[in-house]
């Protein structure tokens, strides 16, 4: 993880600020930084989204491929995650530097998203036991300025919303074998139901309080953070603690409650925005990477 150096006096300043509910950039403890979302940014994917949160930037692409269902769940498709830490984000990721963080991120994402409560995996099934859609979700970190999990989860939700899977027709030939035929029409596609896809809220314990959407400087002052994935109804689907420090049960309870509140509030505007963007259709002016 990209780290920054912070002097003792700066730490004290940040700590006292969080105690007074006024952070260095003027935010309260439960405020997010300015977020920008754009979907459909990469043309050779089935769905893509770019999210910038403060100075953190992530790009997510979703590719759909036909594969064999897992033997344990023959009537479900599955999702695979890969996180690439670009050396553009920070020189620390050069060579194999980003590998560890990448695996950690993708393992967490797998835990959070690849279950039937978060995503409608049954809709990815083509023919039970034989064929199913496999969604390859590729995450590219373009810039790191703290709070990667939240930015990635929002980007994934947006990319999944944007994903268009071609419709398939199954026809049986004379010998009883099945033949899969993909529709040629690019508009003849299935959309995923992303209603239950959770968003991740990371809460950093700084001093006696916790903050949402911590910058790198704030992260340097925190001992441990809690990752909570929350659905639009406020249901918690996964929690994880990261960082070396320890959290006492009472604060975990408080953080979970705050995470629920913040996560719930995150979903409604996100879905509204995504639908708004969708309704603009082809007329939308694309911002891309230079905007």
């Amino acid at each position: 993880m990209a780290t920054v150096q912070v002097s003792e006096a700066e730490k004290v300043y940040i700590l006292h600020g969080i105690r007074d509910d006024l952070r260095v950039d003027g935010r309260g403890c439960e405020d997010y930084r300015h977020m920008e979302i754009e979907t459909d940014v990469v043309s050779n994917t089935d769905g893509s989204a770019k999210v910038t949160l403060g100075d953190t930037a992530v790009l997510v692409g979703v590719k759909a491929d036909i594969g064999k269902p897992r033997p344990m769940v023959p009537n479900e498709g599955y999702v695979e995650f890969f996180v690439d830490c670009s050396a553009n984000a920070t020189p620390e990721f050069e060579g194999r530097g980003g590998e560890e963080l990448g695996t950690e991120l993708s393992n967490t994402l797998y835990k959070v998203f690849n279950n039937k409560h978060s995503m409608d995996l049954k809709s990815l099934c083509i023919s039970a036991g034989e064929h199913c859609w496999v969604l390859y979700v590729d995450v590219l970190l373009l810039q790191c300025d703290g709070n990667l999990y939240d930015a990635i989860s929002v980007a994934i939700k947006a990319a999944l919303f944007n994903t268009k899977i071609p419709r398939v027709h199954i026809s049986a030939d004379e010998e009883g074998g099945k033949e899969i035929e993909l529709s040629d029409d690019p508009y003849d596609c299935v959309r995923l139901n992303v209603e239950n896809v959770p968003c991740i809220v990371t809460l950093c314990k700084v001093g006696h309080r916790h903050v949402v959407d911590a910058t790198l400087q704030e992260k340097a002052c925190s001992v441990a953070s809690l990752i909570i994935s929350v659905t639009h109804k406020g249901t918690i689907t996964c929690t994880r603690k990261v960082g070396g420090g320890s959290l006492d049960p009472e604060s975990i309870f408080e953080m979970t409650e705050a995470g629920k509140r913040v996560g719930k509030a995150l979903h409604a505007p996100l879905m509204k925005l995504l639908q708004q963007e969708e309704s603009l259709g082809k007329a939308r002016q694309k911002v891309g990477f230079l905007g």
Partner: protein
Amino acid sequence: MRGHGTYVDEEKLTASVAGEVQRVDKLICVKPLKTRFNGEVGDVVVGRITEVQQKRWKVETNSRLDSVLLLSSVNLPGGELRRRSAEDELTMREYLQEGDLISAEVQSVFSDGALSLHTRSLKYGKLGQGVLVQLSPSLIKRQKTHFHNLPCGASMILGNNGFVWLYPTPEQQEEEAGGFYTSLEPVSVSDREVISRLRNCLLALAAHKVLLFDTSVLYCYECSVHHQVKDILKPEVMEEIVMLTQQKLLEQEG
């Protein structure tokens, strides 16, 4: 004539970097907008200690090479005339340790471009509580003084290297400890709000490539008071504030 940041392309002089054109008679240079800090003697810088070595500290100042701060070019507690002993060398980390922020002046430039700093004045030295804002060095206007006590209730060091330090205005002048003592008393909420507002104003001005000096920052601060501190960084608010600031600056000039 071909200066820095230009090249000749099919007999035409072309800029090789995006930035501001400067002409000296026939010589045409382009000063890049996004660049590392090219220090000159006398520049005020804000930097962060990255390493403690024999008789020197290494300082990160946004230049191409780490700058050095020699033990012999700092004021140690005990006044100007104090002799440096071997013990001073061993206790260097007590004065400045890795991660600490300092303000300093460029004393000389080595042949490879690395800077040698000094803090031999009471206005320089270790920085205490406050906020560091890292911007492009080309946005800082060169001025007589880079230390400002702003009337809005905070102080600011506009480092020539693009590092800006915002801190609450100290009540009494420097203590006897030679600037190595830092107060860890909590800063009041009102001071914090002013500092946070200034920080966001600086970022807003920098995002719109407005030259930074005390007046521009102060005008921007004044234009932003109708908005909440956290809203300043929203693009539409940022644009509005910066536009108002630019208007004010033009009025003042004309």
